[in-house]
């Protein structure tokens, strides 16, 4: 349809509400964070311009680099945990067996639960006194292995990562299942006729045919685990002694506990670019369109 006179007005009226809300509450904050990031400001008194001092301080702060390291740790755990487990289960589910639907339903369940519910449930599970894991170990006569899972710097990160993996395996499971259902059956049958074992068919035909989906899952997994905040905030708040601190948590605590709004904004800007650059690199590597 052509935009003439009356239509033009309608278009403007129709788009305005969405553009307005979106610009003010999603785009403006990003722009503002650039502005605040070059200021020193405790949130109440006057701001003073400090140039790139916030960024300088940030890049010299070992706690910041510690949080970057932990973030990468979470990303690696997610990619190496979620994707293989989900693919393995999806391959098992992708056959004509009875009762498969129930496994899919159970598999996806954690994905719809709120992160807070998951974090609190797992905190109870990891509880050092009467958490599920320690009770299980004691019941099996392995009480010696019981740990203060979230309170011990040797275990806290592992415990958090297990929860992260548990939360999202179901998402990738469903994505893989959908892709597997699109693999034409004739191809698999042809392979069988040629005498290929199920193992060979899986590795030489099925997996290569859904390779694109696997790559997409890996990207999603990286992007998703970079965003980890709620889960760790509720489970450990970055502790003990910063062993589970990630970038978003570092930003949150620096800003709101230490009242450094300028500095916190600088961390926001770094997270923003970090995420965008990562998405850009991955999409470029795969030749996919970013938007």
């Amino acid at each position, binding site marked *: *349809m*052509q*935009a003439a006179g009356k239509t*033009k007005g309608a*278009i403007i009226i*129709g*788009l305005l509400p*969405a553009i307005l*809300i*979106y610009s003010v*509450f*999603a785009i403006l*904050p990003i722009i*503002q*964070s650039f502005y605040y990031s070059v200021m020193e400001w405790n949130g109440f008194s006057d701001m003073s311009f400090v140039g790139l001092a916030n960024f300088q301080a940030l890049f010299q702060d070992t706690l910041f680099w510690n949080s970057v390291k932990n973030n990468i740790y979470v990303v690696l755990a997610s990619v190496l945990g979620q994707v293989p487990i989900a693919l393995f289960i999806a391959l098992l589910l992708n*056959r*004509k*067996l009875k009762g498969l639907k129930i496994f899919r*339903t*159970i*598999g*996806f*369940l*954690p994905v*719809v639960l*709120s*992160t*807070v*519910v998951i*974090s*609190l*449930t797992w*905190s*109870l*599970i990891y*509880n050092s006194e*009467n958490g*599920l894991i320690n*009770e299980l170990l004691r*019941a099996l006569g392995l009480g010696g292995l019981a740990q203060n899972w979230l309170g011990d710097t040797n275990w806290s990160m592992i415990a958090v990562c297990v929860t992260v993996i*548990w939360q999202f*395996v179901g*998402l990738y499971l469903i994505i893989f299942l*959908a892709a597997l259902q699109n693999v034409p059956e004739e191809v698999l*049958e*042809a392979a069988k006729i040629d005498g290929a074992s199920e193992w060979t068919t899986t590795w030489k035909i099925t997996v290569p045919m859904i390779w694109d989906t696997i790559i997409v899952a890996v990207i*999603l997994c990286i992007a*998703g685990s970079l965003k980890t905040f709620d889960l760790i*905030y*509720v489970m450990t708040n970055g502790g003990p002694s910063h062993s589970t601190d990630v970038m978003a948590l570092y*930003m949150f605590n620096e*800003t*709101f506990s230490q009242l450094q*709004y300028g500095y*916190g*904004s600088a961390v*926001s800007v770094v*997270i*923003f670019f970090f*995420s965008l650059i990562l998405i850009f690199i991955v999409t470029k590597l795969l030749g996919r369109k970013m938007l």
Partner: protein
Amino acid sequence: METTVKTAAGTQVEKRRGRKKPGWKRLLIYIILILFAIVNAYPIIWMVINSFKSESEFAVNQFGFPKEFVLENYQNAWEIANFGVLFKNSIFICVAATVITVLTGALAAYFLSRFTFKMNKTIYTFFIFGMLIPIHATLVPMFILMRNLGLLNTPITLLFPYIAFHLPITIFILTSFMKAFPKDIEESAIMDGCGIFRIFWSIVLPMSRPALATVVILNFIYNWNEFSFALVLINDPAFQTLPLGLANFAGQFTTNYGAQMAGLTMSLVPIVAIYLMLEKEIVKGMTAGAVKG
């Protein structure tokens, strides 16, 4: 000719194999799947079952069913954590944000998908860019913005970020759906003298029902579960939502496990019920959301 024979024979061989699949292999597959299901579901089931046990029973009997069902935990959770208020707030925010997001999003999607004008592509890209914004990078500036606008700690505070950050995925899903409608819908409607908004309301919106269902569910679940913005923008207990209230409650009563589990169970029930009823739609929506977002 030869190929036909071969295929036919092949299908038969395959069929026979399918029937005579070695039992132990099938058994092994089931065992692995059942293990996976247990690992996936047991943490939740464990929590729900134990929410009905008294504190003393929880200490000695974690794995069995409760010897007697105790509702005291629920009473405690309801009273101490103010669950009634939390529920009311969560439902209000969730419903209001979802309705506004879907309506404004659908309207925008209608114009972006059905009309040609100069800025069309630019505006669409502008919206879709929102899916790339890491929400956590906006927590600090969002707090400052809302404080400047006098919008911290009000009953409608959370509506603004929730609507703003879910418009992109809503517009993305709806635009691609509406694009597929045949061109002559509007043409015949205009011949009948329908206005542009009338066409939207009485023709395009009803036709988009499947996609609308997807975005409504998606928005509802995201809003129901959202925590970070609530954490930063709300500290008045009167306006807290369930996730925030739960986290605060657990932080204050760290050793009252029973009440914690009761609270968690209560907040779990609505979402699990919705999930079991609308599984297909939810799975579709959330995977679409993930693949693009």
